[in-house]
């Protein structure tokens, strides 16, 4: 069991290292290495890896960073994550990062990219639009152009040109990464007591701030451990958590949900690491197109994607069914427009489909969970005791 404890301890340390020390160390080993910070939800890290760069996930300061300056940049009715990201930037936590990518999530993140430009943080700041048109010749083409734009920035810094061979190799590494993460979720679906959601969260979040090769080794080791019959089951309901894809709940909240009587068998906490649902073609002559096709054809739904032909409420319902979940917990960050605007769509559909759910809001820095625990505990009890 010591092996597991050591592994999880290491991931916990990486996951909440707001100085990004492992990434810093990686960069210091070679002059040509470039670090690129990316915000939620998703960014194709393969393209960075292929040109000697590393993506560093910037998921806010959570409950580990006191916000003083960040509040001056946003009104009180704006979510919390941009404040803590600004605070991290102004306090020089990200000084060693060369550039920043702000994938399109909402207006707040778009404005955050503008603030980064004004503050002249990093050598480049890129607000990256993702296609809302899911035709390969339209949205796919657009997405490839966006990726080329990012590659241009990296080349300006380290002079490394993208090769097909390198990108295919990077794709293979990230395919493996996604497969291993999915394996853990599959194990948890049947045996959720083998690794807690809190520990799993640390493991996946750690993967956003360390080299993918190292993360794959951790995941392989972890998979071997949890494939064994470890831990003791408890009488809990199984739930899917949805809505927490950008601003991350504090670890205390993630833990509180399981403590209150639930096993979380699927979630969208670190959605970016699980965004692509199938292997990306790693033998293609045009790997950028392969990445684009994977996004167009095999990406997870999210509140920042408007795919009218593939309604997200039914996609979530499918996850609930496939995972054998007893219900859904809608956890939205306060003032998160995408999540809160989607909530009634999900809830109306679930009322019709007979899927049980509860909903609450959180902020990344809250550390009082009594009310949420009461809500989750009551939800769990009502299913355990009163459902057939």
């Amino acid at each position, binding site marked *: 069991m010591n092996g597991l404890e050591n592994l999880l301890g290491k991931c916990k340390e990486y996951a909440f290292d707001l100085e990004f020390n492992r990434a810093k160390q990686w960069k210091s080993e070679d002059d040509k290495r470039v670090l690129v910070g990316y915000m939620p939800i998703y960014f194709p890290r393969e393209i960075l890896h292929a040109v000697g760069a590393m993506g560093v996930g910037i998921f806010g300061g959570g409950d580990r960073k006191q916000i003083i300056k960040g509040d001056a940049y946003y009104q009180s009715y704006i979510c919390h994550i941009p404040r803590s990201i600004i605070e991290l930037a102004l306090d020089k936590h990200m000084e060693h990062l060369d550039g920043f990518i702000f994938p399109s999530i909402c207006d707040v993140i778009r404005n955050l990219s503008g603030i980064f430009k004004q503050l002249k943080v990093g050598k480049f700041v890129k607000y990256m639009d993702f296609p809302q048109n899911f035709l390969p010749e339209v949205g796919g083409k657009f997405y490839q152009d966006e990726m080329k734009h990012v590659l241009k920035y990296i080349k300006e810094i380290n002079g490394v040109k993208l090769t097909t061979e390198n990108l295919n190799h990077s794709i293979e590494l990230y395919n493996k990464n996604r497969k291993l993460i999915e394996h853990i979720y599959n194990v948890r679906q049947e045996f959720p007591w083998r690794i807690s959601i809190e520990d799993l969260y640390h493991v996946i979040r750690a993967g956003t701030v360390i080299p993918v090769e190292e993360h794959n080794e951790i995941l392989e080791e972890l998979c071997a451990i949890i494939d064994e019959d470890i831990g003791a089951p*408890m009488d809990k309901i199984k739930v899917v958590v949805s809505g927490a894809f950008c601003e991350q709940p504090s670890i205390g909240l993630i833990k509180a949900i399981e403590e209150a009587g639930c096993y979380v068998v699927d979630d969208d906490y670190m959605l970016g690491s699980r965004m692509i649902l199938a292997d990306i073609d790693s033998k293609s002559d045009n790997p950028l197109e392969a990445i684009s096709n994977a996004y167009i054809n095999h990406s997870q739904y999210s509140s920042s994607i408007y795919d009218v032909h593939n309604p997200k409420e039914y996609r979530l319902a499918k996850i609930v069914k496939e995972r054998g979940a007893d219900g859904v917990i809608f956890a939205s960050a306060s003032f998160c427009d995408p999540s809160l605007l989607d909530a009634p769509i999900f809830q109306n559909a679930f009322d019709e489909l007979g899927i049980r759910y509860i909903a609450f809001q959180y902020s990344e820095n809250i550390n009082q969970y009594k009310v949420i625990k009461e809500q989750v*505990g009551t939800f769990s009890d009502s299913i355990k005791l009163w459902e057939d």
Partner: protein
Amino acid sequence: MNDTIYTMGVDVGGSYIKCVLVSYNKEINDHKVLDKQTEKIRKRNPKIVASEIVTDLLKRNNLDYDKDISYLASTGEGEMVERKTGHFYSMTSHSRGGKHFFPDAKTVVDMGGLYVRAIKIDEKGKVMDYKMTGQCASGSGQFIENISRYLGLAIEEVGQMSLKADNPEIPSGICAVLAETDVINLVSKGLSTPNIVKGINLSIAQRVVKLLGALKAESPIALVGGMGMNEGMVQAVEELAEGKKNRDFKFLSSKDAIYSGAIGAALWGGFRYYKLKEKGVTL
């Protein structure tokens, strides 16, 4: 057919940890509380205290956790109970505990160390609605404990002392700090200890009666939780409720009221054990 199982309930509260051992038989719809134990947490680690109580109870009854206990349920601050089968939310547990003491109860009032909660229940003990006090400590058992300490009384003496009152004065019911200052003033004024204690009970009872009104509570009402054992508190609640228009409440209390959460958890544990067994699930 002997299909009796043993279950345990551990209720981790703000001040005390309560543990019970129950025998449960679904076939003949019977259960018995076989043993019980309470420990004040003081400044100890609640995890260690909870573990020690469970071990004590098992040892006293010659039982082995792995072999003999079909379900150990925690309630309250459940994360403090490391070895368990499941957890039930405290409102769910107290409702079932109230039903155990008084099968006819339609409302259960959980009067604990940190808050008071009035819960409307159906005939199976299912929670239908509830109201609870706010965060202020002046409406809690912890407040009574503090005051009893200042007055040099053991917590067990508070109930009987309150019954001796003849002219109580009610301190502030809004804030524990103000109330404590009020009590100091009452002592300085020379008010007798029974009258001070009764005044405090009345102050908390006011909140209880308000909750019952807001909940549109139905009678009979079971008073459970630590304060449910305080005869003076029960009397204070009865007196104040009597004065309310259109209220014909019948209050029920038990000397074991502090165990309602633990008993409820243990009984729900038994219920879950059989439910899971029917589904072919063993934990």
